[in-house]
């Protein structure tokens, strides 16, 4: 009975306004065999129940309304099962169980909503701390046992595309979750451009200059790069840096998994490198493919180790330069496909301890003693494999190079391309397309016509000490151009 009245009063709470429309007598006649109560009594119940709902915060459902509108007594027992079950269940429950009776009942329950729905910021902080701690635990259990530092060796030189390449490398290295030492060897001496990138990276860096200038042919470039890398290895030996040496060429792209995978290297490892030999000239490429149609299918653009079925290293897969034989780029800005060398340095990683003078004892027999090389007494011949005596002992990473973790790419601009030093525009740019309407237009002058030749004359964003082309005071973006043109005029 108490529950019934509670439900009724809850109904009153929700439908306070519509209550007045109800006829109290029919309301009572439905199920309460009492004479109709006075309105004061209802008012008191109403106030009491408002207070109760304020405290409890229950949300009462529409079914209560349905329940109250039903007139037959049988409806009472079938529609709102909760109430009836409560009345019926208790005796049968007690019959079955000798221990305490269940406090869990079938039927309609209120949906509990707390009054202040927003999360407590202290709890949110605590949850984030928990997440961090759990992740730390995961890392220690399943991640790399003893993470070693990554020593990235990058040969570079100042040119138009350097900003593009170095930004990519810098971002990749900044994301590496291990300690990074970035050794940048620059051809043509240290320059401010490179220094600004190196400085921005917030990594531990070593920036050295190399005295020769970068030559213009790809072949010579490759040779100089090898020399620059050896110079970097000399630095590793002198500074006694401890970690894994990775050859991060500035135009390559590296995945994050690469840096996780190289942690598994013991002495000297080989990876699969995806070779993206694209010249940017679609016609060239399709003609190359056409000539190859009759022959064998184009081989995989991969350079890397190749294993037999038992996982043992049996050979190397190199990029097939044959289809491109007549159409490779010789000069750096040739519009032809750029070929990789036989064995790219970026496909190999080594333990820096191999380079130390003192570790002659620990060094495995199949790796050459590089001290001679590093001292400058020898020349490096054909790529990184000349560092090992027995190439078959090289460790293969990522299940014998199954996954390609980095991509080799060579993209450079035209030889005569110029770019603003440091990519900072010091003096204002020339207008190539004037705006139609300008606020300072003289009524007597005409708008100049921009001809097509003008537009074609500016392939590179060059700073010209140019004169304005019969321009009136033109509106320019936030520079002092209008004033100067006017004055010059």
């Amino acid at each position: 009975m108490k529950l019934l009245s509670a439900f009724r009063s809850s109904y009153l709470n929700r439908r306070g306004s519509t209550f007045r429309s109800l006829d109290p007598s029919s309301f009572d006649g439905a199920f309460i065999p009492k004479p109709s109560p006075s309105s004061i009594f209802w008012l008191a119940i109403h106030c009491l129940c408002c207070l109760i709902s304020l405290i409890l915060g229950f949300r009462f459902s529409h079914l209560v309304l349905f329940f109250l509108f039903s007139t037959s007594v049988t409806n009472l027992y079938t529609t709102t099962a909760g109430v009836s079950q409560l009345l019926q269940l208790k005796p049968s429950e007690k019959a079955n169980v000798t221990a305490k009776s269940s406090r869990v009942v079938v039927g309609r329950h209120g949906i509990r909503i707390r009054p202040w729905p927003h999360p407590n910021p202290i709890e949110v902080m605590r949850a984030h701390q928990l997440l961090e701690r759990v992740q730390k635990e995961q890392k220690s259990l399943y991640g790399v046992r003893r993470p070693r530092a990554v020593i990235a060796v990058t040969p570079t030189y100042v040119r138009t595309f350097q900003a593009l390449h170095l930004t990519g490398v810098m971002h990749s290295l900044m994301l590496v979750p291990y300690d990074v030492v970035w050794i940048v060897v620059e051809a043509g001496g240290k320059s401010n451009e490179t220094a600004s990138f190196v400085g921005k990276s917030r990594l531990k860096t070593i920036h050295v200059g190399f005295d020769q200038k970068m030559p213009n042919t790809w072949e010579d470039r490759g040779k100089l790069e090898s020399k620059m890398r050896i110079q970097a290895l000399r630095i590793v030996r002198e500074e006694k840096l401890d970690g894994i040496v990775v050859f991060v060429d500035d135009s390559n792209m590296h995945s994050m998994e690469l840096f996780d995978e190289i942690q598994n290297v013991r002495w000297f490892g080989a990876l699969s490198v995806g070779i993206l030999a694209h010249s940017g000239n679609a016609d060239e490429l399709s003609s190359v493919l056409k000539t190859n149609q009759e022959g064998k299918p184009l081989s995989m653009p991969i350079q890397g180790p190749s294993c037999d079925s038992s996982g043992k290293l049996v050979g190397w897969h190199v990029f097939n330069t044959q289809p491109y034989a007549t159409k490779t780029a010789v000069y750096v800005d040739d519009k032809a496909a750029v070929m990789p060398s036989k064995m790219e340095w970026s496909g190999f990683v080594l333990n820096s301890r191999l380079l130390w003078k003192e570790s002659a004892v620990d060094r495995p027999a199949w790796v050459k003693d590089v001290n001679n090389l590093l001292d400058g007494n020898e020349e490096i011949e054909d790529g990184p494999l000349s560092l090992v005596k027995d190439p078959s002992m090289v460790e293969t990473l990522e299940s014998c190079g199954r996954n390609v973790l980095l991509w080799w790419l060579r993209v450079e601009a035209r030889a005569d391309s110029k770019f603003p030093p440091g990519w900072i525009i010091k003096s204002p740019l020339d207008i190539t397309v004037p705006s139609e309407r300008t606020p300072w237009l003289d009524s007597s002058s005409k708008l100049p016509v921009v001809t097509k030749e003008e537009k074609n004359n500016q392939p590179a964003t060059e700073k010209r000490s140019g004169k304005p082309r019969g321009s009136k005071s033109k509106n320019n973006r936030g520079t002092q151009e209008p004033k100067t043109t006017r004055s010059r005029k």
Partner: protein
Amino acid sequence: MTNRSSLSAILLFLFFSASSAQHNVRTERISGSAGDVLEDNPVGKLKVYVYELPSKYNKKLLQKDPRCLTHMFAAEIFMHRFLLSSPVRTLNPDEADWFYSPIYPTCDLTPTGLPLPFKSPRMMRSAIQLISSNWPYWNKTEGADHFFVVPHDFGACFHYQEEKAIERGILPLLKRATLVQTFGQRNHVCLDQGSITIPPFAPPQKMQAHLIPPDVPRSIFVYFRGLFYDVNNDPEGGYYARGARAAVWENFKNNPLFDISTDHPTTYYEDMQRSIFCLCPLGWAPWSPRLVEAVVFGCIPVIIADDIVLPFADAIPWEEIGVFVAEKDVPELDTILTSIPTEVILRKQRLLANPSMKQAMLFPQPAQPGDAFHQILNGLARKLPHDGSVYLKAGEKVLNWTAGPVGDLKPW
């Protein structure tokens, strides 16, 4: 002399602690109230005789609808197959400790795949009549050394609606038998005292196929995918899940720590592996396959179901593995979960990482040691030897064969 013995004792102690510490680094041993029994081997501890029932009780049902093999009630079918080829099976019923009757009461499916339990009581009755008339073993004990697998919503009450199930109660003929069921709630009519609760069937291969490497960091705090309101049967809310799921939604739908929705993402299993807590609230029945999924994927189950009895409750210490939240405390769920000490959470994850824990929740094909089949047999073995009162004197009858609704008495 004492020095040497104490020294050797110290050495022994160090050795044992070192070896156990090695084990504790990644996982911890699980021991429930029955002891360290998850890895027990039931072979040799009991003998089970499998009755030869006509195929209308088992094979024909499966042939009519092969979906019975993949839904969450498939445990009854796989248990039969397991027992047929298990070493605990005996062909001599006189030496058997337990008797199993291969009936599939949950294999009568609607077109959408939900099992209809309306004919199950009649099927059971007819099977038991067959058993009692063709073999003498039923009458010896009136079924007290027989066990049946009844994985439906409310076990042997054979109804999907809770009130109706409570009204019917456990089938009177099964009152003395041991029931192996997924439903478990304390002080409930449909849970008999001696029943063995088992996990619902979850397809092991499907879950294995979605495993991700364990070093992927867990970045979701609380995860749940499923219904909060059952709009078809209970549009108001408050009836479905006793209002608990609706309360979860209303309180935490805007909370960034709670990744809850009614989506059906294809990355459901992967997301569970990236979460710390997985909610396992009750639905129309208190049990759900979410518990199995959470355990397999290492996500701490947050069980919101009052008085629930979890699978193998005597072998697995669920209090130490999961978090129990009373339905009335759902609005404070975030406070509860964030106030659990870090060490406790790490310990729970270690317990969940224990492979024997994951094995115990699965029904792999073919059976592997430590899996749910073996846990069921272990549970049966723990109930041996049968109490003397189980055996009835000749001619004594306890069960009332005409009890129950009239519809049940019709032959099947």
